[in-house]
């Protein structure tokens, strides 16, 4: 198989990369009609598989689960998930031949083997759905020409997809149709109906492409979402220990701080997050983050370049072939860091304290979000896509760190994200060595405002606010959050 993106002429690469359009609610007035009465078979019953299936069935669609024979015979968790909720479960051979739509919700790494097993069983003119385009775009899987290939990708963990649906809402979702596989022109009606079935149409839907999804998703997860949060967390913790801050306090500040800080990001964007700081602290955080942006920009660019050229996926797939040697080594190393091994102390930290005493992380988040966004847009990705894959997902990943530190984050995210995260982390730490030497506990561990007068130069502050608020990620963020918060503000049950 050859990398699909690399087979395209430049004009077509740019065309597919730049697909990103926030859809109007009026485009979903047909509801689930396009799929009503059709046989829908979901392959895989993990968190996304089960929760999407529950939603689709509750929307009136006919859902069954196809699992591998061993999963059924050994009554694995996927089998229990499906049967305990009274779904029909069968083998590929039993269910796939009758399916009008096969939804592939298995982990990325299994896609090739799943598709190789499923495709020969699919009937003429059936449809196949993905929630991530890696298999098509990077691995270059070619699907039979009679089959329609679509993507519906909720931009939230599976449990959220279910919770928001039952409240009568949904989660922001990205949908796409693979241009090589739309023989009957039913791709968009199917993708829209599927999206309605999950509730996604109530929270902002981005019309995208397989290429745009993959190239932005990989970039986001490697850099700001996982890579930088890991690097920033470990460096912050180590610095606090070096400066004599209590280890339990440091551990707690880092574990939960990133969640509290990015919660502000979720509601008010980068400027909303920065506004949580006092004026003096904001000026400081701005200066540090500018410096961080300068230092890290080449690394962000390298990641984006390697993603675009296919170098990243090639080396990762080599590691897959090599029994995940690098992945497992890096995973073990992350489990051994001092931050990971120090339990959060039994100290109370007020919400505001997480900002005041963890200014460094605010600076990391601003630098990372803006850099990831800027570099993606420079590479031809539309601001809407770049927003989802940078700012939007940061609080979701931060939540996993709050739960059980970096180990948990790396367990929850895909293997692809985990691999990219370690890759970034390995390169970023040495890059920041000199920068970190200058950092003291006033920006990480202690209240930055302490002993300061609090007054700042007005013109400087006005200028900083202007720079923060006029950044393109803020402009597009206001537009996109509006379509989400219209729901969120009145989410009821």
């Amino acid at each position: 198989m050859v990398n699909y993106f690399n087979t395209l002429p430049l004009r077509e690469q740019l065309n597919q990369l730049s697909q990103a359009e926030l859809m109007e609610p009026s485009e979903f007035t047909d509801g689930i009609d396009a799929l009503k009465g059709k046989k829908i078979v979901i392959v895989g019953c993990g968190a996304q598989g089960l929760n999407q299936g529950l939603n689709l069935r509750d929307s009136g669609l006919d859902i069954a689960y196809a699992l591998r024979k061993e999963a059924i015979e050994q009554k694995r968790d996927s089998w229990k998930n499906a049967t305990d909720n009274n779904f029909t479960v069968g083998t590929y051979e039993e269910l796939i031949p009758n399916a009008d739509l096969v939804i592939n919700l298995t982990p990325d790494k299994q896609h090739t083997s799943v598709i190789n097993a499923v495709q020969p069983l699919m009937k003429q003119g059936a449809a196949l759905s993905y929630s991530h385009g890696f298999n098509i775009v990077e691995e270059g899987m070619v699907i039979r020409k009679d089959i329609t290939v679509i993507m519906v990708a909720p931009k939230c963990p599976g449990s959220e997809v279910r919770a928001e649906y039952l409240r009568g809402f949904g989660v922001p979702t990205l949908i796409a149709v693979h241009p090589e596989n739309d023989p009957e022109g039913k791709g968009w009606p199917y993708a829209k109906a599927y999206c309605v079935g999950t509730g996604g149409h109530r929270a902002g839907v981005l019309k995208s492409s397989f290429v745009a999804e993959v190239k932005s998703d990989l970039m986001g997860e490697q850099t700001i979402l996982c890579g930088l949060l890991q690097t920033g967390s470990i460096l912050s913790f180590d610095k606090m220990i070096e400066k004599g801050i209590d280890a339990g306090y440091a551990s707690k500040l880092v574990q939960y701080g990133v969640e509290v800080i990015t919660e502000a990001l979720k509601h008010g964007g980068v400027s909303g997050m920065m506004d949580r700081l006092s004026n003096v602290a904001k000026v400081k955080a701005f200066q540090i983050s500018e410096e961080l942006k300068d230092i890290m920009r080449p690394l962000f660019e390298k990641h984006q370049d390697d993603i675009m050229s296919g170098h990243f996926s090639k080396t990762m797939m080599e590691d897959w072939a090599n029994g995940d040697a690098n992945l497992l080594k890096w995973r073990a190393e992350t489990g051994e860091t001092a931050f990971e091994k120090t339990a959060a102390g039994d100290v109370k930290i007020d919400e505001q304290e997480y900002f005041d005493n963890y200014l460094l992380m605010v600076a990391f988040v601003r630098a990372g979000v803006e850099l990831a966004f800027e570099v993606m847009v420079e590479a031809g990705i539309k601001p809407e896509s770049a927003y989802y894959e940078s700012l939007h997902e940061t609080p979701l990943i931060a939540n996993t760190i709050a739960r059980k530190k970096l180990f948990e984050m790396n367990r929850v995210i895909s293997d692809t994200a985990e691999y990219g995260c370690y890759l970034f982390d390995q390169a970023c730490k040495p890059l920041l060595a000199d920068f970190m030497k200058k950092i003291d506990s006033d920006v990480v561990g202690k209240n930055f405002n302490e002993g300061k007068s609090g007054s700042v130069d007005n013109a400087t502050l006005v200028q900083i606010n202007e720079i923060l608020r006029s950044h393109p990620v803020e402009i597009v963020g206001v537009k996109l959050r509006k379509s989400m918060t219209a729901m969120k503000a009145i989410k009821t049950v």
Partner: protein
Amino acid sequence: MKEPFVHIANLNLQYAGIPILQDLNWQIVKGEHWVIGGKSGTGKTTLAKIIAGQEKANGDVSINFNKNSNSPAQAYYVSNWYQFTNLEGERNFYYQQRYNKHQQNDTLTVYADLVHFGEKHNLAFDQAEPLLLQLGFDNCRNTQLIELSSGEHKKLQLIQALWLRPQLLIVDEPFTGLDKASRANLLEIFDDIAEKGTTLLLITNDKDLPTAINCYAEIQNGQLLQMASADSFSKDTERQQKPLPYFLQELPKVSSNIMVELKDVSVRYGEKEVLKNVSWTVKAGEKWLLQGPNGSGKSTLLSLLTGDHPQAYTANIWLFGQKRGTGESIWDIKEKIGIISPELHWYFDKNATVWHSVASGFYDSIGWFIDVKHEERKKIEQLLDFFDLLPDKNKILHTLPLGKQRLALLARTIIKNPQLLILDEPCQGLDRAQTVHFNAVVDELCNYGKTLIYVGHYESQLPDCINHRLILEKGEVVDCETVREPIKQ
């Protein structure tokens, strides 16, 4: 004079600029057991939480614990609402999550939770055993916390508190949601631990109290006022009769003469059978009472009717004339039903205003709020006026007293004039006057062609209009009958 056990001096608290407690003074002497009653919204719960150290206020609160006692030197507070966390200490569960099965168990089992509690407080497990039996909780040992009904959660909290036997036990609305048998046993257990040295402080307007109770008080103008008995507690002002808004006097559209039909329906979780061969037909216009002890399967049965239970898809269930699992969506079902339940209340959006809460009833919380039409706005105003909620319409729902919250949720339930009303313990946590008021509204509504399913534990607290009754025990129908006279009293 001996030193008071609890000494409170000059307690002051303001909430959003409104004084709640003003120079409140209070002493509790050993041997006294208090009940605080009176009007809703006077600060009873706040005072209880301050004594238990869960809220802060200006003033002095000191408790002279007996260091030589074998009871823990603790003021332990049991709240009106249940709270439980997953294994990671989070509380972000969602409405009806308990019916969705996932292999990854997020919460502890009841047994594991109790063992954990026992270890934390250094208690012997054999002392919890009799409590489990007396409160009818013995069969819940292996149940996951998330699978418990609201009544069962209440019991679990009580069991922990009674097992702990702290020197000061504060219980907010102890009888809320309990079935009759458990309630009678609870009164005895209260008396038992009072005799063994626990000082009781209950917050309730109930008149059926443990015999140990010997002091009564209510809060008036931010100060504690001792009363002669529970009979002398102030009552909330009676509601003025208002005509039902015109749009609710219209008969709702009825989709099918047989609204609900269940044939031989069973629900099981692994080995545990929650419903066994239940058959039930509800015809248009009938007013049903659904009764049964905590854990008898009532909530599960109702979840089959409201589209919330995954196992409904493979059972013989017809709703509004359509077999479940034949292409209908849960929103098609919910559109026809007005639902209120303790769980819905518990999971309701904590940030919604009263107005938003009521408006969400038009969409079963499908939130096209931007599009609330002029006609709908008028209806919302009329209904808020009917429930005397106009002055509160812009307040955050959960900051109101419980009684008002329930009325607002009832307004949400009926705003779309649904053909079927499912009211699952709608008066849980309300006092008698509020209950009478609430049920009078239900009766009035039912004059206009509604079909009703009502869950309530106590015969004295039911609407008059009930004309059928279904009784569940351990998941089985033990009685299904027509009722000629009002069940009340």
